[in-house]
């Protein structure tokens, strides 16, 4: 009973963070399930995939008008992401895992740096203008080619190292394509749901989705994601942006350590 409760609480935390940062929550769930609960990695990934879909659904259910995903943008980018994922899975057989990790870390650090640089530039450009809005409706998406390129890189990385890629999609949509941060996170949540949906049935058929682990976790994730949606409009862009940059730095450092052969997770 304690395990079930602990799984639900872990799910709630992952759901809140996933909904707020547009990541789906898998990046928190897999380490938690393997390190704290000692579940086999395949069960952790299978549970995490259903958890990502739960976050995506929770955000979609709770999104207020004008605060949902930009569906046309999500579908266009997702086409590039899935194409990239196929290329990534093909490339994975030829590249060294350490090289991949370092490559991945490079992209993550670049994304963090670029997000920070854009924020500084916006600050200077805005001057005394009102604070940047999370869910501003009158935005124009620009730099489509760069966005599609980065989306395919995010997809390739997904295929290469088995991550959802939300932590790349959000900064790219926000910093490069000019999408407001709130819309970028909602759109990323929509996208990571599709990405997770593409592999979840394979894990299910293989028996890697254990219902008694998955159900309490995803219930928590769904509740957490809906809570995150309630909180999101009251947050300041600066806080969310700082959280995103911090998370990118943590992931980047982890990947560098992995690339250098230092396994922090034991």
């Amino acid at each position, binding site marked *: *009973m304690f*395990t*079930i409760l602990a799984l639900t609480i872990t799910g709630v935390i992952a759901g809140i963070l996933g909904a707020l940062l547009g990541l789906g929550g898998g990046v928190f769930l897999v380490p938690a399930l393997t390190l704290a609960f000692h*579940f086999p990695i395949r069960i952790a990934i299978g549970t995490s*995939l*259903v958890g990502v*879909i*739960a976050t*995506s*659904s*929770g955000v*979609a*259910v709770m*999104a207020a*008008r*004008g605060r*949902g*995903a*930009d*569906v*046309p943008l999500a*579908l*266009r980018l*997702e*086409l590039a992401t*899935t194409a990239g994922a196929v290329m990534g899975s093909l490339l994975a057989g030829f590249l060294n895992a350490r090289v991949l990790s370092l490559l991945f870390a490079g992209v993550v650090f670049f994304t963090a740096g670029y997000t920070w640089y854009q924020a500084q530039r916006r600050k200077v450009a805005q001057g005394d203008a009102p604070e940047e809005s999370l869910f*501003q*409706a*009158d*935005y*124009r998406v620009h730099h489509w080619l760069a966005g599609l390129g980065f989306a395919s890189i995010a997809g390739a990385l997904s295929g290469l190292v088995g991550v959802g890629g939300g932590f790349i999609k959000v900064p790219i949509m926000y910093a490069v394509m000019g999408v407001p941060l709130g819309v970028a996170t909602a759109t990323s949540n*929509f996208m990571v*749901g*599709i990405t*997770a*949906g*593409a*592999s*979840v*049935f*394979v*894990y*299910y*058929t*293989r*028996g890697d*989705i*254990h*219902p*008694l*682990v*998955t*159900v*309490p976790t*995803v*219930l928590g994730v*769904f509740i957490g994601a809906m809570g995150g949606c309630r909180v999101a409009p009251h947050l300041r862009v600066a806080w969310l942006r700082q959280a995103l940059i911090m998370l990118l730095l943590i992931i980047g450092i982890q990947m560098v350590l992995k690339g250098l052969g230092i396994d922090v997770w034991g």
Partner: protein
Amino acid sequence: MCGVKKEEQCRLDITLELAMQKVSTIISVPAFLFMICGSAVLALRQKFYLPDSLVVPQGELLHPGNLLSGQGLLNLGILMLAASPAIRVFTALVVYVRIKAWVDAIIALGVLMVLIFSCYVPTG
């Protein structure tokens, strides 16, 4: 409300948002209810243990014995939730076809095809 966006585009955005919200609610709520009911049945039968696998093959999901045992309900809930992204993409496709936005419809169809094909690709 939509600022620089054209009124037609703005209406489409709202239609899509509402459609996604409705579809997500229609799928997620029963999925979680199935999961809760399945957990309750298993708890009552004192079969709440780890780590034995309780996965039920898709073909046997709707078998009355499996449904009543709780395992079928748990698995049905998980599968319903797992199918929700594909159903949302399908909904977007229907909306695009209805308003004759063919380019968007083709893109949605492309994503849907990838999702369908991914079911048959083993990950090893």
